[in-house]
């Protein structure tokens, strides 16, 4: 079937099967930042924004994106670049495989809540698993970015 959607601010037409999940569609479109870490909607690696809201692209039918706007990290490089350097300073990127989903959900968090507490950061990002960093470095990175914004 055919779908029309906005992908990273570009109108595109895609040809999919009824059960193609959005993750596979996006990777086929060259959005390799979108990763598969589980098959059970538990890890957050495949997080993208659908009409601005973070969702799990592994669990969404691509057909459902018809008529909607999807953003992946490929389309939000500048917004991400504003804060990911602070994560790099902590060494919190580690293996990097969870980073795109984590960065996307952090973007969603900061849009919704520009000045979150540590507790709010942890709660919002709880669905983003990371096996390398132990999470605290990610928190420190976000915190130091927020502090830098306050000057």
């Amino acid at each position, binding site marked *: *079937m055919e779908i029309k959607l906005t992908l990273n601010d570009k109108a595109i037409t895609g040809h999919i*099967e*009824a*059960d193609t*999940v959005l993750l596979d569609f996006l990777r086929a479109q060259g959005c390799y930042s979108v990763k598969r870490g589980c*098959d*059970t*909607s*538990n890890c*957050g690696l495949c*997080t993208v924004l*659908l009409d601005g*809201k*973070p*969702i*799990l692209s592994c*669990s*969404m*039918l691509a*057909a*459902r994106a*018809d008529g909607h706007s999807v953003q992946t990290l490929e389309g939000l490089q500048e917004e991400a670049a504003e804060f990911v350097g602070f994560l790099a300073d902590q060494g919190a990127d580690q293996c990097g495989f969870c980073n795109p989903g984590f960065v996307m*959900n952090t973007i*969603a968090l900061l849009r919704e809540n520009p000045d979150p507490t540590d507790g709010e950061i942890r*709660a*919002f*990002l*709880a*669905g*983003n698993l990371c096996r390398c960093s132990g999470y605290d470095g990610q928190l420190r990175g976000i915190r130091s970015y927020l502090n830098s914004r306050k000057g």
Partner: protein
Amino acid sequence: MITIQKYVRAKSLEEAYQLNQSKRNRIVGGMLWMRLGRGSVATAIDLCDLGLDTIEETEEQFSIGAMVSLRQLELHEGLNAYTGGAVKNAVKDIVGVQFRNMATVGGSIWGRFGFSDVLTVFLAMDAYVELYKGGVIPLEQFAARKKDTDILVRLIVKKTPGAFVYTALRNQRTDFPVIACAVSQLGGEYRAVIGARPAKAMVIRDEQGLLAQGITPDSAEAFAGFVAERTPTDSNVRASAAYRSHLIRVLTARATTELGGI
């Protein structure tokens, strides 16, 4: 993962209903649970274009569309004001924000899943489901029914004066609950709802009037003991039946004392 031959966005509930009469067709909610199955679906019926993704609040009730996400429940001020935050407490530990943006009220309620926090918390309320053909029936009655080919359109929560407390224990913070427990007082009637037993949530009313003289630490313990005795439990990978029964007693007592403001 399930395979799907065809995807249809229903243009009306009638169209969805007609499609849903075939056993090989399925209505999709958040797709989070259904996709884990190994079966094959001829037509996936999507209700996403039918305007069922809003929570309407009136003086008398909340009308929650089947396609409303758990995240919407979590953030809805009116619903959380009415329930004293019980709805938020029930959903906030479900996997993550992204998951809760996708999981729907309709899918959660329709599935009548044993692990469901959502079914557990709403069973503590004066809640009803609106079925396309079956009309409006109490949620408790719906929960007891077998799945059929009707369509769940809305969840309706009446603003019957009451108070609610929700609590659960999880082995890991965003896991399924080992026991989910909602306790409420609705128009003077006390009830406990126990989910993740691990079977489907059960409503236990204070039939013996253990709380009739008010909530005290002792009456709360007595009620909790009553609830634990009345609630069958079973073992699965997350916990044993014995521990679940123990937890029902502990969580119900705590939720009841919290309800009593102690």
